[in-house]
């Protein structure tokens, strides 16, 4: 069951954000609400899977010396596609993600997986790896967004569906949807991971 293993390592054991500490910038910057965080997670995962597939397909025809520029061109192609798709279908999300959509191209998770995994493995395992890493990323970024939104605003909303509402009696701690809240929340997530998940 090595395909299953490819899929699951990214979710917890080698979770890109809280274990490998990569892809921090978008994680912290767009997690002020669960909806933005989820949108970012989906966009990055699409780019990750697509670029993993293409990199793995061309890996036997890629000269070693110029592989990084080739990866970057492949990744930025998909980032441009995502950029235009979000712009066309969800203007609100596009406005709140802002410059972080084109910045998916320098997200270390994507270049890192292309270099460390897709460049050395076949198309199917690379797809599974991209899917697993992407899910790990979506999980953490949405969790972070949800925690910050609950504490800072008393609600959790994803795609206009309100999943949770603490009601008018709740006094929101505005700090958590402002920048310091992102640093604090990820610090506690990492500490929890150190305490309970590390073997």
């Amino acid at each position, binding site marked *: 069951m090595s395909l299953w293993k490819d899929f699951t390592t990214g979710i917890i054991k080698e979770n890109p954000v809280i274990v490998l500490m990569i892809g921090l*910038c978008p994680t912290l910057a767009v997690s002020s609400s669960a909806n933005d965080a989820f949108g970012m997670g989906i966009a990055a995962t699409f780019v990750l899977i697509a670029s993993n597939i293409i990199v793995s397909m061309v890996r036997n025809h890629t000269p070693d010396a110029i592989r990084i520029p080739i990866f970057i061109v492949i990744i930025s192609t998909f980032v441009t596609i995502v950029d235009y798709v979000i712009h066309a279908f969800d203007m609100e999300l596009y406005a709140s993600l802002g410059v972080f959509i084109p910045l998916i191209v320098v997200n270390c998770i994507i270049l890192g997986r292309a270099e460390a995994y897709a460049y050395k493995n076949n198309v199917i395992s690379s797809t599974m790896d991209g899917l697993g890493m992407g899910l790990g990323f979506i999980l953490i970024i949405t969790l972070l967004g949800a925690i910050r939104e609950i504490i800072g605003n008393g609600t959790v909303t994803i795609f206009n569906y309100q999943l949770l509402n603490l009601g008018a009696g709740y006094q929101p701690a505005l700090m958590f949807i402002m920048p310091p809240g992102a640093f604090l929340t990820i610090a506690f997530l990492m500490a929890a991971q150190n305490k309970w998940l590390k073997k």
Partner: protein
Amino acid sequence: MSNELTWYMILLSSILINNIVLIRFLALCSFFGVSNEIETSIGMGMAVIFVMTLASASTWILWYALLLPLHLEYLRTAVFILVIAGLVQFVEMYMKKALKSLYNAMGIYLPLITTNCAVLAIALLNIDYGLGFVNSIIYTVGVAVGYTVAIILFAAIKERIALSTTIPASFRGHPIGFITAALMSMAFLGFSHLFGL
């Protein structure tokens, strides 16, 4: 942001009010990775100021002289990242050959900067904000100085934290670093609404 802003307002706003690391969350990898000693963080800061200014100037010219007249706006992300990567490589080779002492001081940080998302972000923001050439250079220098200020302050605090023995085991290392950054971010939040940007 409009062109009516005076240069010192752009500088103040980019250094303090919208500090790139603590308020905008860019360049976090190097902020946490290269901040173990004050000296290395000064070197990193200088390298960032240098590369960012060069990158902003060249991408600004490229955008207004080539991509915009030819209606190739959709190539922006791909072209900018390749230009930045190529530029950093070129600067590194030139420095190694011609400016040996400068290379020894900040050469090792240069490859790290290619993957520094702040460089690409500022190149894109200069275009998004519609800044003129001079203003975008001022803005870039301000952002890079803001980065340098933040990373030097952070390194100074981290050097003291390293000596502390009272931190719980699961908070050692990165978690306490993030909590420090949270407190610094709160301090910088105090500058917001300084002149209503």
